[in-house]
């Protein structure tokens, strides 16, 4: 299983993107003239200090936030606002507490106008993919944190996006669950052939999952650095190459 991950749609192009906020009247530039290309089917990890603008960038890609200037293009078409070609996985699972697992997974399709039975049939497929078939009639409060996050992932996949946007999806999980979920994400990404943009605080997670890592600089609005991860998949954390890449990444970005 090498990089045979070729898809035709879901390429993201970011051109000259800028975004600032106002904090107590003073402007705060978060992203300045950012350019970035993500080929279709690639997985890109975004790391960087807290407050460096990772979530902001992801929200702009999702269409939940408007940039001040610049363009986001998907497959060479400029996009504004939300689109069915993208779905977001937030840091919290954001499950609807009164719907059972199956209906939560079907929720995205249902609000897009797909009939309930059809939506549930398609939802079951993704429930199987995240390994929660037996829990389809459980309520969200009966799930563990990792299970809930898996339901959120299934819900995002059910609408069959070309681009999956993840904002620290595993940040709230314990170490063991996190490792298992990273494997799962890697498998899902390979199976579903989506473009993946993953915001994370965890360098190892970035190396484990991504084709490329982007580090947003500490000083706001500076130029981000990019590094290719040329490791074969599936990746092994204890592998000598893995450790070497990790060290390289850390020193190259002045992280130690």
């Amino acid at each position: 299983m090498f990089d045979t991950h070729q898809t035709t749609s879901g390429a993201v192009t970011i051109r000259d993107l800028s975004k600032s906020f106002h904090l107590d009247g003073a402007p705060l530039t978060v992203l300045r003239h950012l350019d970035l290309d993500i080929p279709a089917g690639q997985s890109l990890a975004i790391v960087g200090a807290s407050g460096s603008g990772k979530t902001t960038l992801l929200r702009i890609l999702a269409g939940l936030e408007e940039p001040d200037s610049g363009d986001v293009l998907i497959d060479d078409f400029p996009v504004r606002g939300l689109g069915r070609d993208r779905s977001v996985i937030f840091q919290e699972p954001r499950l609807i507490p009164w719907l059972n697992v199956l209906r939560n997974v079907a929720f995205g399709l249902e609000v897009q106008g797909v009939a309930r039975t059809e939506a549930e049939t398609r939802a079951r497929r993704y429930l199987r993919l995240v390994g929660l078939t037996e829990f389809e009639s459980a309520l969200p409060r009966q799930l563990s944190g990792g299970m809930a996050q898996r339901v959120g992932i299934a819900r995002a996949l059910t609408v069959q996006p070309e681009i999956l946007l993840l904002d620290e999806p595993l940040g709230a999980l314990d170490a063991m669950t996190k490792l298992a979920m990273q494997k799962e994400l890697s498998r899902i990404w390979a199976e579903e052939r989506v473009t993946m943009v993953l915001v994370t605080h965890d360098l190892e997670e970035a190396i484990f999952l991504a084709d490329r890592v982007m580090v947003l600089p500490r000083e706001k609005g500076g130029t981000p650095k990019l590094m290719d991860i040329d490791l074969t998949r599936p990746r092994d954390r204890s592998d000598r190459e893995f450790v070497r890449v990790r060290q390289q990444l850390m020193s190259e970005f002045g992280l130690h």
Partner: protein
Amino acid sequence: MTYDILTPAERAGAQSAAPASRWRQRAQGLLADYGLVLGFFAGWQIASMAGWLNPAVFPAPDRVVAALWNGLSSGALVDDIVISLQRAGIAFLAAVALGIPLGLLMGQMRPLERALDPILQLFRQTSALALYPVFILIFGLGEGSKVFVIFWATLFPILLATIGGVKEVDLKLVEMAHSFGASQLTIFRRVILPASVPPIFVGLRLSATTALLLLIAAEMIGANKGVGFQVMNAQYNFQIPLMFAAIFLLATLGLAANWVLVQLQRRLCSWSLDPR
């Protein structure tokens, strides 16, 4: 008024046990929950029989029960119950019919809420009983003013609970729905409305209690029928057991209304009820 979602009996019923000891546990549970109430009535009965209580003020419970039975079997009290339920029921339903839609609207529209809030606060802080004479001037001393004063008092808990419920909906859920491309109407139908049901029920239960309170007050002034009227009337005529019977009926009405709402609540929003 208690904000407790489950009554003690429900909580006791929720505990499961082995079949053998279930009955014993249940009896113990009932005793723990209602023992004090039973003890109170038993003490009252004993004190009456021993002659420690003045029967002109506190008749023995058995005499109250007898008066209640007489009133019910002769149909006299039944008429009172029907008319009282009618008054409170119409007023309560009208308050629900206006309060919930208006609250849903106000919770979502900041400008509307800002415009209406000061006058709402003013009305809310003015006791409905203080306004009763005004309502009598407007609607006369008949049914109109009675129903209206109950409606007035029950409207505010429902309205405010609904507004609060809508405003407290988890914005993260709203954003999640939005991110899937849900329309405003879909977000309202699929997220905001269901999420507001539990807080609306808090308002409904508060309103039901208020409705009975105002019912009694309204029936004590210028009525010739109704359970509240019977309390006053029996007292005038020194029918003290009947007076207590009517008081007992009022308490029962309150409990019954709460029970109905609890059942409805369990149907509509069980997800918010049972603890994890």
